[in-house]
């Protein structure tokens, strides 16, 4: 009765005779009767009026679109030239250039991915992946799986770890430095660091515990900033959709300097442990003492907040659980203090917040809406 190869015999419409002529007719009748919405007559006529008006207007301005096109192309060429000249002048590190030319990635965006030097993509199903480099970068361990890659003598091989919303990952680099990557982040780094420096590029948020090596300074490029490090633990938050970059130093010392953009003329700034630097889009920097735990506890699956605005907490949750959360300005300004355990479900966390603030939340069309009662 069940013969899967049979259907080619009835291929004209793919509806196997099997369903019986009557049943088949019923199905087709239902398909034909469904999804036949019509534009209301008035709107249909109005839309045609609009289209027809556009048609009569075209011939009268036939000459200038050409001129406009030419001008646009000229402008494009000139600005591309200027851009090229500028970027040469600023001497962007090869790492940054490499990261910039990488296209947004294809494939299933919900999963963590490791991209090796030859563009080989490894998809990691674990949403809290752990990756360790062994033996001078040639081989790495992803959770329990071992992977090796070919390295080149003359040129650095860059690897990229992409951690989408809803995931986090822990990465141990070839030099022993540990990096906790938060949700919605990307780290680009050479599989093996060069002899005289260690450089990585971050988009999003990460906590770094850097292995001390005086002979090879460690730098993180994030947004327009270069964070130079000597054995240190610190957190960087540089999401493209946030309008500031934040660096929080847990221990040791780091030096901050803009390597491009408006801040390049400014002197480097040394950050003290327990301090945070906030760099605005206008390259203004504000430094002040903060509670370190509030900025680094995410790596242990917690939010440790003290008087943190709800808007900020909800943004973190939204990234961590990969779930859009909307709130109005008034509720967003409320603050919350205490520890939130992110190992539970998002609803657990939201329940706690709702119970201890005057808020409530509801789910509507896949979005969570949080507002004051």
């Amino acid at each position: 009765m069940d013969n899967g190869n049979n259907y080619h015999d009835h291929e004209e419409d793919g509806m196997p005779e099997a369903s019986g002529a009557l049943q088949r007719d019923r199905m087709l009748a239902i398909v034909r009767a469904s999804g036949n919405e019509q534009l209301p007559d008035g709107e249909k006529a109005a839309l045609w009026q609009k289209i027809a008006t556009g048609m009569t207007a075209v011939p009268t301005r036939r000459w200038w679109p050409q001129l406009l096109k030419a001008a646009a192309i000229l402008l494009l060429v000139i600005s591309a030239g200027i851009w090229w000249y500028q970027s040469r002048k600023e001497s962007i590190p090869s790492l940054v250039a490499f990261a910039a030319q990488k296209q947004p990635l294809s494939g299933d965006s919900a999963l963590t991915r490791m991209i090796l030097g030859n563009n080989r993509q490894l998809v990691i199903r674990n949403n809290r992946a752990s990756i360790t480099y062994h033996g001078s970068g040639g081989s790495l361990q992803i959770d329990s799986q071992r992977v090796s890659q070919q390295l080149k003598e003359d040129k650095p091989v860059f690897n990229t770890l992409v951690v989408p919303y809803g995931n986090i990952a822990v990465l141990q680099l070839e030099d022993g430095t540990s990096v906790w990557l938060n949700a919605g982040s990307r780290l680009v780094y050479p599989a093996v660091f060069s002899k005289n420096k260690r450089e990585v590029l971050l988009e999003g948020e990460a906590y770094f515990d850097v292995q001390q090596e005086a002979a090879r300074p460690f730098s993180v490029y994030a947004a327009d900033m270069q964070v130079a490090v000597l054995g240190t633990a610190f957190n960087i938050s540089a999401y493209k959709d946030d309008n500031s970059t934040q660096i929080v130093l847990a221990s040791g010392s780091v030096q901050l300097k803009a390597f491009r953009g408006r801040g390049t003329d400014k002197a480097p700034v040394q950050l003290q442990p327990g301090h945070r630097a906030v760099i605005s889009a206008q390259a203004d920097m504000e430094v002040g003492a903060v509670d370190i735990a509030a900025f680094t506890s995410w790596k242990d699956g917690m939010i440790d907040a003290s008087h943190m605005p709800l808007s900020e907490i909800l943004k973190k949750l939204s990234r961590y659980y990969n779930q859009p959360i909307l709130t109005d300005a008034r509720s967003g300004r409320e603050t919350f203090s205490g520890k939130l355990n992110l190992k539970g479900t998002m609803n657990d966390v939201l329940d706690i917040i709702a119970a201890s603030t005057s808020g409530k939340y509801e789910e509507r069309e896949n979005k969570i809406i949080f507002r004051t009662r």
Partner: protein
Amino acid sequence: MKLSGVNEETLWQNIRAGDQQAFSILYEAAADMLYAYALRYFPDKEMIKDCIHDLFADLYTQRQNLAPQVNIKFYLLVSFRRRLKAAHKKSSFLSLREDMTGAEPLFQLTFEAQDVQSKLIAREEEQAVLQRLAVEMNKLPARQKEILYLKYNCGLSYEEVAVLMQITVPTCRTLAYRAIRQLRQELHASPVPAFGLLLLACLKNF
């Protein structure tokens, strides 16, 4: 899309010549089909009307570059679908949620039994059978619904459906076949004995 009393070839020639009358006829015939098709992807009426507007506006400005012989309906759907996707991508880009990819809009269609025109329809029990069938059909995955809709509601061929959905013709056939098979299984497990029997009778020669 009905082009009654019009020769499709002549109409297309006139479109290419920029004849407004021809555009008006084509719009009259196609607007509802395009509108219904767009609703399968997103409910934003204004955005849909913009897409239809742009489709015809571009058809007019690009008229000299149009292929001399096309299947008009298929041509419109292909270029319209591209436009819908772009519009959807743009709007989801502008909305609050920043996706890492531009997620594809999902095909959405609820099969309804009550509008079915049939000689059988007068009988009450037939209406009940159709209702049940529609419920089962609504459980199909989006892509399979899409194939059924394009093939049997829009009247495209398998080859055209495959091009439109950017899949191969065999995949397209297999998906359609699978839809039918799933329906059979679902209905087979249906608790209503009379209906089960009816199906068994229908499926005997499968």
